[in-house]
């Protein structure tokens, strides 16, 4: 009897180990790890990993990282690999709108949820939306639209625009121009500069001045933003023609390289590290402790992608279909403020902040001077 009981007890104990361990969620991080956007890709990944660490649930996730090189063809190959070979449950990432455009059909057809942690092209949550694509970062129009009315309210009546000549540049300026004109302003002129090739903005700045605007509104990011702001500063025209734009122009990630030219530039963005909410103060302090640098909008996008995924899993999602269904239902208050996903577009609904770059001692920092709450995109052809 006792030996039988002992055997049964032993068998039960052994079978407990034979039960499948809690299934790991396999996440494909699809980001540029080389090339011009590598720094952004790293920032997004760090934010995402931090979200998992903050929740204490890193052991429940298996992360597979692939480098898109910010090239559409490479991105598509890597997406296929993650889905077909690594069989990930969900993909997170995409910095370049070009890559997003290239993999949209594949993601939709393969029915794999994708949390977009940067790429802003409007169609991805517009006419090309998909129940499997949830965007937690921003849309190009969303960041620019509020500035139209805000600048008009500040007394700006005539604006000259500049942006690089590719899809994002056009979308950003179009969104701003539409809102600015609707508020009563006038676009006195504008140019699109050759994307990635323009190094000397001198001729364009001179043309902008000749149009005699109340301000210049631009979209530039990364290396082009640094060049543009430095050259704008060198011409000494900030009193005559103040500079406005989207916050990518003076992103905390590289504003230091821009020097004094960035001082006084007023831009709009969905996040700055100097936001005064409790959630953000904790986030910034912990992020700095963990990584030794201040978080940027890219880090917070990665973080919110992590929060979104954790929220979807907490609501009981287990596989691709249920994750995709649960992602748009997650709501919480994060470092950016109140976060929710609009079920009619699968795009994030968030506050947009207007900030001025100011000098604080030796460093450049962001002073929030405006807040537009709960900016939501129109469906624009999305049928979800």
């Amino acid at each position, binding site marked *: 009897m006792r030996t039988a009981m002992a055997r049964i007890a032993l068998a039960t104990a052994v079978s407990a180990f034979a039960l499948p361990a809690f299934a790991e969620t396999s996440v494909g991080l699809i980001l540029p790890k*080389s090339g*011009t956007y*590598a*720094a952004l890709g*790293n920032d997004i990944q760090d934010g995402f990993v931090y979200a998992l660490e903050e929740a204490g649930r890193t052991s429940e996730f298996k992360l597979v990282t692939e480098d898109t090189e910010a090239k559409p063809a490479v991105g598509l190959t890597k997406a296929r690999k993650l889905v077909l070979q690594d069989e990930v449950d969900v993909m997170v990432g995409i910095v370049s709108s070009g890559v997003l455009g290239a993999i949209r059909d594949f993601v939709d057809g393969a029915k794999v949820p994708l949390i977009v942690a940067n790429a802003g092209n409007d169609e991805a949550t517009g006419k090309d939306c998909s129940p499997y694509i949830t965007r937690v970062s921003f849309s190009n129009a969303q960041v620019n639209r509020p500035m139209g009315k805000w600048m008009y309210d500040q007394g700006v009546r005539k604006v000259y625009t500049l942006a690089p000549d590719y899809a994002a540049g056009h979308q950003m300026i179009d969104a701003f121009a539409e809102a600015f004109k609707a508020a009563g302003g006038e676009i006195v002129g504008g*140019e*699109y*500069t*050759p994307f*990635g*090739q323009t*190094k*000397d903005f*001198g*001729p*364009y700045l*001179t*043309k902008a*001045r*000749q149009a*005699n605007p109340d301000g210049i509104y631009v979209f530039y990011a*990364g*290396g082009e933003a*640094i*060049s543009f702001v*430095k*050259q704008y500063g*060198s*011409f*000494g025209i900030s009193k005559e023609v103040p500079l406005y734009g989207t916050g990518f122009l003076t992103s905390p*990630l*590289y504003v*230091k*390289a*821009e*020097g004094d030219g960035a001082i006084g530039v007023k831009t709009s963005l969905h996040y700055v590290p100097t936001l005064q909410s409790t959630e953000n103060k904790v986030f910034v302090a912990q992020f700095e402790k963990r990584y030794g640098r201040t978080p940027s909008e890219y880090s917070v996008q990665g973080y919110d992608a992590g929060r979104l995924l954790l929220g979807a899993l907490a609501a009981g999602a287990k596989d691709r279909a249920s994750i995709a269904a649960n992602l748009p239902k997650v709501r919480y208050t994060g470092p950016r403020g109140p976060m929710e996903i609009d079920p009619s577009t699968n795009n994030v609904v968030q506050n947009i902040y207007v900030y001025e770059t100011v000098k604080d001692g030796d460093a450049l920092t962001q002073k929030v001077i405006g807040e537009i709450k709960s900016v939501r995109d129109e469906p624009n052809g999305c049928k979800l």
Partner: protein
Amino acid sequence: MSESGFWALQLLNALQYSMLLFLLSIGLTVIFGLLHFVNLAHGALYMMGAYIGVSVAAATGSYWAAFLLAPLAVTAIGAVLYFTLIERLRQAGPMNQVLVTFGLIFIFLDLVRIGWGDIALGLDVPQAMAGTARVLAVDYPVYRLFIIALGLLIMAALLFVLSRTQIGAMIRASVENAAMASAMGINVQRLFVCVFCVGCALAGLAGVVAAPVFSASTGMGISILIPTLIVVVIGGLGSLQGAIAGSLIVGFLETMGAVLFPQFAAILVYVLLAAILVIRPKGLIPARG
């Protein structure tokens, strides 16, 4: 802003861009003219000049230290490249030279990414040049005027050396006919090394001079290579006058193109390149008529 003021500003913009192109193209064209070597790694040396300049300025707090040391450092890198790689490739034929030196660009690019990171870095202009000055009745950034002045100075210095000094004569002789020059007792080999080093120094100088305006980024070596090659092909391989003519033409065309025909600005230069290749394939002022 007045009409004449507008054109004065654009003239200065064009001149400044031309001078930058000149600094880069003169090194490339003389290296090709003398060594018959297509050195595409020239763009990488430009990038190294910018990044080393950024580091020196950050370490010493002085732009001028960077201005002096970056070209020297790039010359050293160039010398190492010459003795390890380029000397061996001299007989290899243009295709192999292009492939190897083009590959060097990517090696340097990743080395820069490892050493300096992915984010573009800025370099501040020296305090004395931070403002604007009144030139041709407009206010123009002093630093850009400095670039123009430096370019003109180096142009004059090179013209003087090449046409009025003995070493200049030896260089011109070796470009025309290396075998004959060697037969006359000129140490062509040593001349090659000298000229190569000067070319590298100029590339490094162009990098550190451009960094405050354009910022040091990992893509800068590749993105400046095309305009530089166009200057060299349009101007004529191997000649100083060709580099001067080419850089002025390309600089003005790109700047005025951006002003007058912005949609076509990107292709104007290529149209001119195609025309030159058809009408005068050796370039406008080639070294060997």
